[in-house]
Each structure stands twice: as structure tokens, then as C-alpha cells.
């Protein structure tokens, strides 16, 4: 397997707080990578740093052969790297159709025919968005908004999509439906998932990185990570076993 994403020695400090401390992460092609850790452990900072949403103090990011560290987010995007947000992010005051058109702009020359494109229709059918096209994005349920967010990102035909707690805030029924979608998503592009619930990561990720205080304390398949004493102590709490 070759590396799709190589982030080396990422550091970012806010005053005295290390959001990221010499963090090195590699994701291979065809691999689903997960990241877990308590609140404030640097998971979202890592995604923000990779996509160029926050500036790095040190470190480099190479995505699919392109250096994207120190560049604005649209550069990462054009190299094939896209992301979702922990707090879902869509153009809330616009209808769903407008959202898709705005998202498809950099990739489709003819915006008006975008929605009739076979690839786009396929994505809309898969995410069951076709009946919602006329609705305002801000008036959708959270699950619908997450599906819309996913569709908007997929219009770019990304190679990797980084998702920040994609099942956060969903009802138990919706969580199960979302996990089915995320498993199917792997057929379309590689995924990187932040979660703080272990069972989601276990079901979706081939390998897990465990974060504490901006540092990586474990990097292994989910079953191995779960047996790691340090992980159990640091993240799951000291067990009585």
C-alpha cells in the first residue's frame, strides 16, 4: 500500500497549550483510518491543520504527491482532499439544490445542468436527497444536513474525505443508517474518521490513532488498540482488570 496522506511532525501551539505536538500520521490508499481521543486532544486541530484551515507552527503535509501544508484550503481540495465539519456546515439560507450547485462549481463548468449529471443523480439517489432539493438547507434535520454535506463534498470526486464525528448528535436509528452509508462511502473514496465512541471506529476503521494532549499514543488496528494498556488508562479510564 502506498501513502495517500503523509503528515509529518505537525505542531501547533496556542499560548501555552499544545493543540498538536510533533504529530506524524500516514494514511495509505484504500485504507479507512480512524482517530479517537478525549475532548481537546487535538483531533479536530489535526484535520484543520491538514486541510489548511489553521496554520502550522512546524510540520509538513503531503497529499497524493502534492505539498499542501502552508497552502489555503482550496488547494487541498483541488488535490482531492475534502472534509466535513463537526458542526455540520451547509449554506443554510439556500435551498438544497443551490447548495449542490455552489458545491459543484469548481468541478462542473455548466452549473445549470449539474443536477442532471448521471454521477450527481447517482449520489443524490444514494443519499436519498432527491426529494429534498427544493427545501431550505437550514430547515433540514441534522441527519439530512449531514447527508447533504456528504453529497456536496462528493461532487468534487475526492480521493479522501475527512469526517469529524459524522454520527454526532444523531438518534440511535440514524446512527445505524449513517454507519451503513459510511461503509458504502468507502466504495467511492477513502475515509478518515474522527469519533469518540469506540464502537463506531471499530465498525468503520481499519486502523486507529489514539490522541491525548495533541500527541499520538497509539497507532494500530482497533482490536490491538483496545488491548493497549496506555490507551485503556488514558482514554477509557483505568480498568479494574
Amino acid at each position, binding site marked *: 500500500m502506498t501513502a495517500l496522506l503523509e503528515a509529518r511532525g505537525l505542531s501547533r501551539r496556542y499560548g501555552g497549550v499544545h493543540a498538536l505536538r510533533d504529530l506524524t500520521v500516514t494514511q495509505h490508499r484504500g485504507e479507512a483510518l480512524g482517530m479517537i481521543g478525549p475532548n481537546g486532544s487535538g483531533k479536530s486541530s489535526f484535520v484543520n491543520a491538514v486541510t489548511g484551515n489553521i496554520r502550522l507552527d512546524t510540520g509538513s503535509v503531503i497529499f497524493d504527491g502534492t505539498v499542501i501544508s502552508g497552502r*489555503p484550503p482550496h488547494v487541498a*481540495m483541488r488535490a482531492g482532499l475534502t472534509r466535513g465539519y463537526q458542526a455540520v456546515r451547509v*449554506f443554510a439560507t439556500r435551498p438544497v439544490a443551490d447548495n449542490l450547485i455552489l458545491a459543484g462549481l*469548481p468541478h462542473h*463548468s455548466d452549473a445549470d445542468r449539474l443536477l442532471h449529471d448521471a454521477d450527481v443523480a447517482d449520489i443524490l439517489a444514494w443519499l436519498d436527497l432527491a426529494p429534498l432539493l427544493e427545501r431550505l438547507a437550514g430547515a433540514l434535520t441534522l441527519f439530512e444536513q449531514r447527508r447533504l454535506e456528504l453529497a456536496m463534498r462528493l461532487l468534487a470526486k475526492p480521493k479522501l474525505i475527512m469526517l469529524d464525528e459524522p454520527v454526532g448528535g444523531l438518534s440511535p436509528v440514524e446512527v445505524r443508517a449513517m454507519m451503513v452509508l459510511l461503509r458504502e462511502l468507502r466504495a467511492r473514496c477513502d475515509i478518515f474518521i474522527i469519533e469518540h465512541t469506540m464502537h463506531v471506529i471499530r465498525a468503520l476503521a481499519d486502523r486507529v490513532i489514539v490522541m491525548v494532549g495533541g500527541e499520538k499514543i497509539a497507532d494500530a488496528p482497533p482490536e490491538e488498540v483496545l488491548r493497549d494498556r496506555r490507551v485503556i488508562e488514558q482514554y477509557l479510564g483505568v480498568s479494574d482488570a
Partner: protein
Amino acid sequence: MSRPWPLLAGSLALCIGLPLALAGAPFAAYIVTGAFLQLLFAAGMNLLSGYTGITPLSFAGITGISAYLCVGLVMRAGWSFWAAWPVATLVAAFVGVLLGLPALRLRGFYFVLSSLVVQTVLTLAFTAFASLTNGDTGISQIPPPSSPFVAGGTLGGTGLDLLIALVGWAGVVISWRLAGSGFGRRLVAVREDPELAETLGVDVVFCKLAAFFISSLYAAAGGPLMAVFVGFISPRSFDLLASLNIWLMVAFGGQGSIAGPLIGTLILAPLPSFLLGYYQVKDIIYGLLIITVTVAMPGGIHGWISNRMRPRLP
């Protein structure tokens, strides 16, 4: 719009026909041509404030830079208007981009404030550099452009009215083409959520600067036209109130649509001419309108109408 040609041809015919029909009525022609000039400004302001979500209160200042520069080149350096006009326009548009740089960092209200300061400084500069601008007295007896058709003749009266009407028409048509293009939609994405737009692959910095350049071109192109049309310029022609008036025409009609600024300009541009004897009343009316628009009609007349025509959301 799927078949724009009848509308384009019709509006072009109107822009040519109106000045010709009013050739014998100077006062009416003056009002109509003034409105065409405002139409150009409103279309340019709309590209920034309506489509990109950046409200530049330094807009009239750009017009002023271009007007003073062109008048200076013509009256002092002896240039032809036809050479001075494009040069002044380009220079002022680049200055407009420089003055727009704070928009890369400041959002919404904070950029409006910074542009207000820029506008104030520009107005003060127009007054302070009296050797170039003749200060508060202004520059009068600006000569009309030479005629492009008759050697030694000048382009005044109906000819100038026609030129301004055509430039105003072209300005609106170009803004309509831009708004419907991929670039125009990127601007909307930047307006709605710059960070999301970036994540979706939009080069936000480029889009903002390009929008500033194009909008400043509008502001700048109108300056020399205004100078030769009125025959007089002073710092008051390009002050904060002038910027606000242009913004008001856009916002009152409806920002972020092509019809909006058209409606706003048609209603508001002729207003001062009907209130000539009551100059202060005009500013009071404008002030009340600004309050009404911001509080009660954020979408302007166009937004208000299209809201009522659209079926209500569940």
C-alpha cells in the same frame, strides 16, 4: 433566463431611444442621463455588496480618484478624454483593489467600518491636495470630450447622453452575465460562508480581489463620465453620502439580484431632481429609507416581491 435576446434588444433600443427622444428637453434629459450614470454605479456596487457580501463605503472615493485623474490629464496635461478616460479608470480600479485588501481579513460590519474610514480619508485628501483638486472650490468648466466623429467638434448634449446611456446599459448587462457565470456563483458561495466556500475548492482570496477589481472598474469608469456630464467636480461629489446613496439604490431595490438595483435606481435616482428646492429634505428621506431598508426590508423591493411570490416553506 433562457431567451434573453428580446429583453437585451428592447433595453438597448430604450437606451438609444430615450436620449434621442429627449433631445429637445434638456431638464428631462439631464435627469435620465443622471439615472443612467447611477445605474452604472449601482450595478458595480451590487457585484460587491449584493453578490460578494462586502459593502464598500469607499465606492464614491474610487469614482473621485478616477474623475480627478482624468480631468487633470485632460485640463493640465492636454490629453484627449478618450485616452485619459481608460487610463484613469484602470488606475483607480487598481487603487480600489488595494483599498479592498482589508476585506481579506475583516468580515461584514468590520469591513464596512474600515471602508468608511477609507472614504473619509479620500474625501479629506480631495480637499487637502488643493494644488491638484482645487480643494473645496472644486473644478468647474470641465470641457466636454472631443467628438470621435467630427474633427474639431465636441461630444456634448445628446451625444454625451447617448454615450452615458450605452455605458450604463453595458454595465448592467455585464453584471448580469457575471452574476450568472461560475464566477458569480463562487462570489455567492463566498458571501454565504467563506470558510465553507474554501473547503469546497473556491479560491476565496482571488474571488474577493477580482470582485473588488470589477466593482472598482464600474466606480472608476463612471467618474470621468460624471465630470464631463456635470461639468463640475468637488470633494462633495465623491463623499460618504455619495457612497451611501449608491448603496441605498442597490439595497432599496434588492441586493444580490440584477432587477433590484434597476428598480432602486429608477425610483431613487430622479428623486433629488424633483426636490431641488429642498436639498436637506432629500437627505432626510434618504436617511429614513436607509433605516426602513435595513430594519424592515433586508431583501429590498425585489426581495419583498419575490418572497411573496414564492410558496411558503413548510
